[in-house]
């Protein structure tokens, strides 16, 4: 089994530019795990992936796959396989030939090729398509072929470059589960790039959040969700996203309290540092009914989004806009003045200036 390790890898496309595309970063994907690089476009996640693939050379640093230093090797020598956003299927080859291409280049015996391709095609349920050309396939089918082309190689590391972004929502969730299933079966080390936090949450063993060429946080999906290390990570994950309100730190009766406009929230732990705070609170940590220990805040209902099982209620409070996720479907109506209850145990406290978690 194979571990993927990046040490102090950085990339600067233009030597004159001040900001590199990728600041020096360290990353280790343990053998058999799936790491997902996630972040907004331009954050450096694709650059990282392409450096791992060998399609770009890092400006500094080293890439190790297993115990081999592959920094100076071409893509062919790295024993990796990559699934492209555009699938990059060879348009003049049939599905079978697409799958067999890498094996053929490696001079695998024809019988073996047939066996391996058929096995992969069966696993991906694309067996009936083997004699067709990519032009005659639907988006989902192409996606499966692209996956198959990577799988048939049985590489040490799988690389995915936003593989689902060209699919519609339904297919995307289906394929997400498919990828997860395959990963469960093969247990190959994977590096997966996406800008979609849902994909990251659902697929990853480890999530790597990136922004502007920096790695902001590395952790398991629950870590990232429950304990975001800064305001960006906190805001990036979760639908609807976390609400932020400004507050100042005070001490009331020996208890640290965050006080903002129209609310006052006891802080769960004594926090050091800045006076100015930014309180993040997820919609599910706000209730419309009074709960023990919760802090009230008044506001007016701006709009309602009915999700079916739950309702999202958008409130304008003195502290700013808040979103409440509630199972109560007939409660507040638009225009009502209501009181929302914040759960201090589930509030995240950030430094307003550095945006780091306190």
């Amino acid at each position, binding site marked *: 089994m194979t571990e993927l390790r990046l040490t102090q890898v950085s990339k600067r496309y233009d030597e004159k530019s001040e900001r590199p595309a990728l600041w020096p970063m360290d990353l280790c994907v343990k053998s058999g795990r799936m790491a997902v690089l996630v972040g907004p476009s331009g954050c450096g996640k694709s650059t990282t992936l392409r450096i791992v693939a060998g*399609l770009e050379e890092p400006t500094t640093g080293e890439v190790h796959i297993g115990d081999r230093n592959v920094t100076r090797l071409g*893509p*062919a020598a790295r024993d990796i*396989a*990559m699934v492209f956003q555009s699938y*990059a299927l*060879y348009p003049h080859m049939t599905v079978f030939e697409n799958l067999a291409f890498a094996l053929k*280049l490696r001079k695998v015996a024809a019988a073996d090729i047939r066996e391996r391709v058929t096995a992969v095609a069966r696993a991906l349920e694309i067996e009936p398509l083997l004699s067709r050309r990519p032009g005659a396939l639907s988006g989902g089918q192409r996606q499966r072929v692209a996956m198959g*082309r990577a799988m048939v190689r049985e590489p040490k590391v799988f690389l995915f470059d936003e593989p689902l972004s060209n699919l519609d929502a339904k297919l995307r969730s289906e394929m997400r589960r498919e990828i997860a299933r395959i990963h469960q079966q093969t247990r190959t080390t994977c590096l997966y790039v996406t800008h979609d936090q849902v994909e990251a949450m659902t697929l990853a063993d480890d999530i790597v959040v990136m922004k502007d060429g920096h790695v902001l946080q590395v952790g398991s999906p629950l870590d990232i969700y429950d304990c975001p290390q800064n305001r960006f990570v906190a805001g990036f994950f979760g639908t609807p996203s976390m609400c932020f309100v400004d507050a100042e730190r005070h001490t009331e009766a020996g208890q640290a309290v965050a006080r903002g406009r129209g609310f006052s929230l006891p802080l769960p732990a004594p926090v050091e540092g800045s006076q100015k705070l930014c309180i993040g609170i997820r919609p599910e940590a706000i209730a419309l009914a009074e709960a023990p220990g919760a802090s009230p805040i008044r506001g007016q209902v701006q709009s309602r989004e009915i999700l079916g099982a739950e309702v999202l209620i958008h409130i304008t409070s003195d502290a700013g806009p808040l979103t409440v996720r509630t199972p109560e479907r007939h409660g507040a109506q638009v225009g009502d003045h209501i009181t929302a209850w914040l759960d201090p145990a589930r509030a995240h406290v950030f430094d307003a200036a550095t945006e780091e978690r306190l």
Partner: protein
Amino acid sequence: MKQLGPYALAAAAALVIALGSFAAYRNRTFSEAEVARAEAAAEAAARGQKAGPAVIAAAVVLAPKKSARYPFLSHRDAIIGGRTVSLGGPGSPAIHKRLYDAANHCDDHGAFSELSGDSGRVIAAIPTDRGTAVAITQPPSPPEPLPWAILGGLLAIGAVVAYCGITVGGAARTIGLAVGASGLAAPAYIWSGAIPAAAILVIAVAVAALDARGSLRRAARALHEGRIAYAFLSPTLAAMVVIVCVPFVVGLGLGFFDHHRGEWTFVGLDNFAHILSGGGHSLADPLNFWFTVAVTLAWTAVNVILHVTLGVALALVLRKPWLKLRGTFRVLLILPWAIPSYITALIWHGMFQSEYGAINQILATFGLDRVAWFSSWTAAFTANVATNTWLGFPFMMVVALGALQSIPRDLYEAAATDGASAWQKFCHITLPSLRPALGPAVVLGAIWTFNMFNVIYLVSDGQPGGSTNILVTEAYRWAFERGERYGMAAAYATLIFIILAGGTLGIGWLRKRRAR
């Protein structure tokens, strides 16, 4: 009345044929009558009788008095109206020259009579004891007028018959139409025999049959519905017919005739038989059709291969992002294409010249022997190919550049991760991606090269010994260097067409089969 549309269509076609057969009939009877009149006048002149009406000149031209010094000069006197007149010399009346030339012609070829198409005059000459009797007549009366009464009457009767048929309906409609439109067949038969009459009958029956099937009504409706479109199309359609269809059909037809000094003789498939049998030359003889076919095929194959190889290679080089001055190179490389091909061909012909040609000069500076470029088949063929490659590669390069730019970079990256080397990427990604664009370009380039007259004619001109001729230059030589044998040239052109059409269809079939 609108119901008579199909009848009007058939009647119009029949009328054209009937008028044509009447014109032929009138010209025949007219010329027969006039020639008879001129011959009678000549005989009258021979007997010394007075000339009849419509005779412009009648004379007995006396035997020539040969010049003692010049065998091609002779003096002739003529008896005109009883008086002896000396023919010839500057300032003589033009009619005297006609008498003089007619008498000469009669002396050489015997009695003749001839209707001049331009003036309508008839000249007749017969040899007599006293000399040559010549008469020139001018037709006294205009030719018989068109028989509008007969034509109009028959058309009207036909219209009535057709109308009755239409009113009754059903099978009567079809029969009425056929019978009504056949009326003009009778006078056409009397005037010009069975062929025009049969043509009219065929048209009448065909129109009636089409009418019965409703095709005519549908066609009329389609014509009416698309009248604006057809109005816009008609100038182009007319131009296509005149510029493409007519010459094509005429060219095909000419292949069945032999042209010899202005005379056309129908020879059936003789031209083709002569060409395809090799014209009595051995297979190794450049004049054998099959030799030329082999040269043409070799010429086409070698050129197309070089054009594609060079074009793709240069396109690959020009694609490289590191190449500075890429734009400049692109322009420079397209230049050969932009210069008229005959100018390029003439320049290359000069460059291959053995004494002062640039190529031999360059060879000489390297201490190599001068090559007599047009003395051996290989050298001459090479010279032609070099010229045509220069002319042909930019097209392939432009096509390849366009196709290369449309290959996504992902494909190369995918191939790289799949483990392909640079050469394998070229074979498995670049070449197959070029194929859809290059395929039609190769077919087009092959057709151009197959018929590349300019280069062959201007560079090697078939040298040595006609062995570098291709089919199209052979066709030219039959038309313009071997005594205007247009029939042979047309037969060559037809064969070229058959070869190219067959080749193109064959390639299309192969491609389709391959795609499947």
